[in-house]
């Protein structure tokens, strides 16, 4: 497989890597950089577990191939907030009970982050629309919707 050289910024840090051209951004994040908060639930753009912010837009990182990563700016769940310094969205997910097995949670956090950055006061319909690319098998989604509402309040007073 052809290798490509890529330069990009992830969570504010610069990376220079040489990787096979068919590697996905998801694989780069997980296997090359070693950040495992971004999950694989399907590898086909169907579940949203791998959602990251890529050049300012939320995307399924399992669908982005290495050559596209060159020159890009990427934000993952770890870049949004950490255990010691969580983001209000992450706090809201915890407080509202929106986390069960948690495997979908990073993807939902990133999608919520994107949604709230574009639309600080989303209606319930807009939340559903904004998170419609993310699947969760545990929660039934109600508490996730509540968490996004709460995060919106936290962020905007």
């Amino acid at each position: 497989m052809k290798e490509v050289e890529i330069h990009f910024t992830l969570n504010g840090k610069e990376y220079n890597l040489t990787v096979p051209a068919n590697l996905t951004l998801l694989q780069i994040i997980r296997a090359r950089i070693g950040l495992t908060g971004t999950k694989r639930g399907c590898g086909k753009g169907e579940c949203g577990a791998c959602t990251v912010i890529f050049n300012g837009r939320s995307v399924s990182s399992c669908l982005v191939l290495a050559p596209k990563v060159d020159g890009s700016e990427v934000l993952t769940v770890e870049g949004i907030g950490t255990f010691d310094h969580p983001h209000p969205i992450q706090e809201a997910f915890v407080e509202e009970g929106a986390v069960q097995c948690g495997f979908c949670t990073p993807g939902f956090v990133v999608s919520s982050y994107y949604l709230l950055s574009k639309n600080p006061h989303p209606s319930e319909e807009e939340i559903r629309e904004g998170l419609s690319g993310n699947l969760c098998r545990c929660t039934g989604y109600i508490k996730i919707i509540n968490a996004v509402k709460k995060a919106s309040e936290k962020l905007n007073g």
Partner: protein
Amino acid sequence: MEEAKYKYIGRSVPRIDALEKATGKIKYMSDLSLPNMLFGKILRAKYPHAKILRIDTSKAEALPGVVTVITHKDVPGLNGFGIVVPDMPVLCKDKVRYIGDAVAAVAAETETIAEKALSLIEVDYEPLPIVDDPEEAMKEDAPKIHEEGNIHLHTEIKRGDVEKAFKEADLIIEETFFTGRQDHTPLETEGGVAFVDEEGNLNVYVGSQYPQRDQLQLARCLNWNPKKIRVVSYPVGGAFGRKDELSIQPILALLAIKAKRAVKITLSREESMIAYWKRHPFKMHYKVAFKNDGTLLGVDAYLVEDKGAYSSLGGPVLNLAVEHACGPYRVDNVHVDGYAVFTNNGIAGAFRGFGAPQTAFAIETIMDIASRKLNIDPIDLRKKSALRKGDKTSIGNVLSTSVGTELVLDGIRESNIWKNREELRKISTKPWLKRGVGVALTYQGTGLGVGIPDYGGAILSMNEDGSFSVRVGTVDYGQGIGTSYAQIVAEAMNIPIEKVKVVLGDSFLTADSGPTSASRGVYTGGKAALIASEKMKKTLKEKVSKLFKTDEDNVEFGFGYVYDKVSGNKVTYEELAKNFKEEGKLPEEEGYFLVPTAEIKIENAFGLPHHIFAFSAHTAYVEVNTLTGEVSVLEGAEAVDGGIVVNRQGFEAQVEGGFVMGMGYGLTEHLAIENGIVKNPNFSTYIIPSIKDVPKRIETIPVINPEDTGPYKAKGIAETVMVATAPAITNAIYDATGARIFSIPATPSVVYFAIKEAESEENFD
């Protein structure tokens, strides 16, 4: 209120591991990477049913970058696993029985090389006739999947005189029902790492529901001392029963042993859906007798379970279906005849509800038909026969533990949608959109049943800083038992919950607490943790009485400290820990709890009866598009008796998640297998509910019904909360359209044709 006296029990306590999960910090087993690790891939069968004539791995072995190739020849112990009957080969030798059967496996330097190596393995097959209809499979002359024949289990129960009941009946309802092959689709597929460490211990890090049983099953396959197998199975990205049985573990372990290096396997979604466990589809024929006043006179049910290719827990699933076939109702004339039958339709095993969702769909549809034919309110009809404490269940055991049937029916009557159903069903935005409300009732045994070892275990130790660690073998895969254990220990020890560290699912570190299944996690592990806490308090009392030279009876527990009520002297846990340390070692206590069982045993029905039950009543408010057959669930509600609630937020989360999983079961989910081949192994074709499909509101109504044997009088709710949702929805579809659904999932085409049939019968009033 019972819970008002508690600091933690009954409160909404955020999950103790939630922040680690929401920040991506926690490592699931499929997130682990080890230095110098190899990647494993599994070669699956080419045919759903075939003889293996030859396996040649030489070309794969010669491929640069391939470190190990394994076949059946490399299995040193028993080439089989299975919780009840170990009939599933680790790697098939002379026959494959479903399309996911494993034939060989490879460990290589990269995933790409491993993938390439699979394509170089040559296997010659002689295809055999495919057995895909369980009833055909039962016939004498059907091709045999296993030598012993295709009937895995036959369980028949007779009580009273069912023929006499039909003679005396005012109303007889006779119908046939079908249920789908639901895939658990935990968001994390089967995955993890294995390696042998310097001490010669085999380490297997794969998310599962019972590390100690995995350890024993692996020992049997590998011929390895179980004491030298460490299975770590927490955290897990969802399980729902799927991860109760082994999947990739024996292959992963074999690769690691043979390669003498760490190996990682993570299944793709497709491979996971094709190769591993499902919910058993059932065909059910019911004949049910009623009196005009609604009395349930008799039930004759014939159940056929599509077992798929291997046993796993299919026998116990059938038995639980038999036990729950008549619903939580008093009925004295019963004949339930159940068969679990092998086919080449994939494999099926444990899944939330364990046989109850299938029979609940049948019996609750019949209750709905009866309520309309007899003109009795559906809740009143159910109440008429609802089991009460002291009653005999349909299979003849006397209910001596807490029974919440009437409480949940009263609870659901007060739900928003039931109270307002007359107005709600009239709402019409378009002439072709029809609305309706349906109700269904169910119950679910907590624990494993008679004759099966059923115990909880917990080790509680004091740490140097005065905090405590509780170590329980059960696994938190999203239900929240870890948080419940922390609440129970914090409450019992009277300490801040932050001072309780919970360790789960590790065969070396945690006490064996049985499987994390059968809604038993909080009940068993929680009770064991409570018992360990009581012992710990006794040890601390002794210590403090010596310290303050006072009588043990004078020693009391404040919030985070211990004191002598006579002198007022107090000592914090931190100081106490120091004191213990100086004099030797920190205290550690074990708690074990044997789950009480029924006094009787049902002949020829292993595991029956259950003794402790959770109860729930569900309602659904739906809108049906009569032009397309599409159904939207607008609102739902559940009234649930799970004993005293330990974590209010966790309780709601289970109810909401269970209701939505039940929606999927009722409306969309069925893994289609045609001629043994899976047709929809991905999320674009196998549809689970998305955030856009779920109702605006799912009302959670806990009923207060203490179960005296449980920790702080709790039972378990994990399964019942999903079980009755599908029939509540299909009954609502009837309420909206007059179309009766006998087959789930009620996909648009099922609903559309049911509407057409109802119209042609013109019998809807």
